[in-house]
């Protein structure tokens, strides 16, 4: 099936540093998403993105978070500055449509903030 790639698979950084998580979505998909899963906890929606804009974000999407997809390249999640509670696995997803559409997920990036 369609593949979503995420780079890197693991990232370890010191608290206060900036980190950028990269997602290579399915090539003809137009809608993009980030989800967060803290170890041992439920997967939770962070943000969705379409046509260059954030359409909806959850309360987990703090002011230190930002997303973009410049010129159809990677869809990125940037955290600046990072905090200890940002340690989690971040999953990227994409879909062709907005409503009713199946979302395809990447393998996740495990972020550890020390």
């Amino acid at each position: 099936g369609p593949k979503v790639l995420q780079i890197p698979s693991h990232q370890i950084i010191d608290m206060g540093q900036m980190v950028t998580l990269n997602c290579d979505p399915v090539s003809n998909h137009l809608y993009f998403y980030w989800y967060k899963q803290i170890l041992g906890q439920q997967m939770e929606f962070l943000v969705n993105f379409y046509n260059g804009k954030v359409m909806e974000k959850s309360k987990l999407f703090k002011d230190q978070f930002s997303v973009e997809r410049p010129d159809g390249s990677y869809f990125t999640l940037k955290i600046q500055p990072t905090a200890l509670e940002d340690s989690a696995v971040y999953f990227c997803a994409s879909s062709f449509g907005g409503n009713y559409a199946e979302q395809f997920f990447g393998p996740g990036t495990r972020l550890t903030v020390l």
Partner: protein
Amino acid sequence: GQQVQQSPASLVLQEGENAELQCNFSSTATQLQWFYQSPGGSLVSLLSNPSGTKHTGRLTSTTVTKERRSSLHISSSQTTDSGTYLCAIDKLSGSFNKLTFGAGTRLAVCP
């Protein structure tokens, strides 16, 4: 907000047995997906099934939308099926998709 309840929370089977996993949700779903999450954490989409019955390999999902429930049947379980099975739904609310996930069913298949 939407709620997704999965049962059982955990399940232990002998290899070759069948498994029936349940997902109940609090509001009408326009999209429902079943995922497998490996012990290492990676996520695999199994089925997209907002209504009706779908089969793929040893998996069968039946979703009864008006009763707000879905099931995932795993036949002839294998040790490699061990992991967590997640149900996620989305409701058409005028906004774009955002899946709400259940807490999952942790399956262990013993040889």
